[in-house]
């Protein structure tokens, strides 16, 4: 039992699963000898050897293609893309093949791989390093998209992703990689996929978020409690398939919904949640659904980065808007 960051939790999960399942292979750029540019795979090559922790050439489409090939042969590759922004050369492999293997072979083959990547803005990085385009993959049938928001969920959800017979895009919120620590029991226990997690119970307004924005959302929920507004906070965790039931149950209770995510607003995951709730929960809504999101622009550099990411102030404003509707 130890307190650890998200980075450590992912490292532990990989180590655990590699020790218990010989088919798990880790591959990616700089993951082996260097231990990963964020140190997420540190120590794995020493422990499990060069046949199970592979340093690949600088070619993302190849990383994806090799992984898909491995998956058809009974291996369970966990491939790393150094940043989400580097996944696009692999997009063809992911969308045209990984997501379709089960369908194409009528279930004779599945594609039990995990594609991991740090995602999101907030570390003052140059261009391409701050992407939050989970919507591209959520929109693709046949792909699962999972985004943890805490060390414990990072551990449990990654194990579940590796054990799942279908492809999982596992996005790691790099802004909070080391921001908090949490006690994580290294017992190999997976958390359920395809399910939201309710982090705080409330009855005035439902706040739905995922990834790094969970941090700000929880902070705001705590602050407004003092003003007498009781917020229910939900971590989506599995973006696709979306557990809309949990969200609907919450909206049935509160009548007010605010969705927070860093990704751009247009056609973001928030749009899907809002549409689903409007479709199935309109009779419970007291106020229009609010989305607090990144802007529809390229993620700005250091000076404006903080303004781009949904701030506590913007979240608070959205809550005040819905609370006006009695």
């Amino acid at each position, binding site marked *: 039992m130890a307190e650890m960051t998200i980075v450590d939790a992912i490292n532990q999960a990989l180590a655990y699963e590699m020790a218990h399942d010989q088919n798990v292979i880790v591959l990616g750029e700089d993951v082996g000898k260097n231990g990963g*540019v964020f140190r997420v795979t540190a120590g794995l090559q020493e422990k499990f050897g060069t046949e199970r922790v592979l340093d690949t050439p600088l070619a993302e489409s190849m990383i994806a293609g090799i992984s898909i090939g491995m998956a058809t042969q009974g291996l369970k590759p966990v491939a790393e893309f150094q940043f989400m922004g580097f996944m696009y050369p692999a997009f063809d492999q992911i969308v045209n093949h990984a997501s379709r293997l089960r369908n194409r072979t009528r279930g004779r083959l599945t594609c039990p791989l995990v594609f991991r990547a740090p995602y999101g803005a907030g570390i003052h990085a140059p261009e391409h390093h701050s992407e939050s385009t989970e919507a591209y993959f959520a929109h693709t049938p046949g792909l699962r998209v999972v985004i943890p928001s805490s060390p414990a969920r990072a551990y449990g959800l990654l194990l579940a992703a590796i054990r799942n017979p279908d492809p999982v895009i596992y996005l790691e919120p790099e802004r909070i990689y080391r921001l908090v620590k949490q006690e994580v029991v290294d017992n190999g226990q997976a958390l359920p996929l395809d399910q939201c997690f309710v982090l705080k119970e409330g009855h005035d307004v439902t706040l739905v978020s995922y990834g790094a924005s969970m941090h700000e959302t929880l902070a705001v929920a705590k602050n407004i409690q003092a003003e007498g507004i009781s917020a229910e906070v939900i971590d989506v965790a599995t973006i696709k398939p979306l557990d809309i039931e949990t969200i609907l149950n919450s909206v049935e209770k509160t009548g007010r919904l605010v969705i927070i995510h860093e990704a751009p607003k247009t056609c973001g995951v928030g749009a899907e949640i809002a549409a689903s709730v409007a479709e199935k929960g309109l*009779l*419970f809504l007291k106020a229009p659904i609010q989305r607090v999101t990144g802007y529809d622009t390229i993620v700005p550099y250091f000076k404006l980065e903080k303004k781009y990411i949904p701030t506590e102030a913007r979240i608070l404003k959205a809550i005040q808007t819905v609370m006006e509707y009695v």
Partner: protein
Amino acid sequence: MSNIFYLPDLGEGLPDAEICQWYVKEGDIVKTDDLLVSMETAKAVVDVPSPYCGKIVKLYGQASDIIKTGAPLVEFLVESDAVTSGHSEIHKDKGTVVGSMEETDTIITESATGIELTKVKQMVKALPAVRVLARHLSVDIGSISASGAHGEVTVEDVKQAAMIGSALTLAKTKVNLVKQHLETRVDQLRGVRRSMANAMSQSHAEVVPVTLVDDANISAWPKGTDITVRVIRALVYACHIEPALNAHFDQANLEIKRHSEVNIGIAMDSKDGLFVPVIKNAQSLDGKQVRSYIERFKSQVADRSIPQDDLKGCTIQLSNFGTFAGRYANPIVVPPIVAILGTGRIRDEVVAIEHKIAIHRILPLSLTIDHRAVTGGEAARFLAALIEDLSKSH
């Protein structure tokens, strides 16, 4: 003060770089951002700018030399003590290949799986537009019974609830013209008010009312005469003369039951609504006794302690609305009784007495009878008897 500029990571995760060409030599004075050297990395040829203003003291290599990332590159002699912030961080493993990542030791204690929720509270189902309508019409949507196909409150439900509310409160439009702060509110009828609403509806449905109005000249009354007692005495007298009005009518069996006792129901107003306590056997009481009954009823109505028995058995009613305002009215007969007398506000009136103008005190009378049971003649005779008794000095 001497500062060493260490070779930064020129790409992402580059271990070293090869010196291509120096742009400066030892002894040169440079400004911040002046180019120092071009270095070739595994990815590209990169120009390295100067981080300081100062004099070049030492170059740590020649063209073609490979310098490791983090190793000394150039030594400066800097005028001020200003040191760029990135200087010492290069030695520490930042745990990231680009940018800078925030690190804390904050420990969070939330559960991995979140919390188990208790049962969901039942929320009123209604389209947002319907909720807005309910708010607009000042109706509490939670109190409306839903008739929608999905269990939701509909527009019609809201409108109906609003109508019931507004029928019994002041109409909003009229009130707007008066510049006063008035409260619009909807009261759910309970208890006495509810009974009144029901009783009046029933009366309206069954009774065939006719009202006769007249004035009694009470100028002969001595000062300090108990008005209510006199009126009650007159009522008793009139019942004696015309007993048809002291009766109960049974529509179902088409029966009229005349009563020997005169039980006068006195309409009394309270903040909770209308009460009608009954002075039983008024024909056998004297003035003092009648007054004491009235006083007892007044206080018992005020504190809601009046016994149920005292609200029953009425054979004829009296409504003295004139204490506040009003001359004539058509007071409502509530079955099974068949008559009610309403007395209006006493006033000084110009009258003709023996062809001369005089000013006399007038008590206006309004007598409503149920014409299913009582004839016009009976009513008129009753009224005449009333006036006769009231006109006496005592």
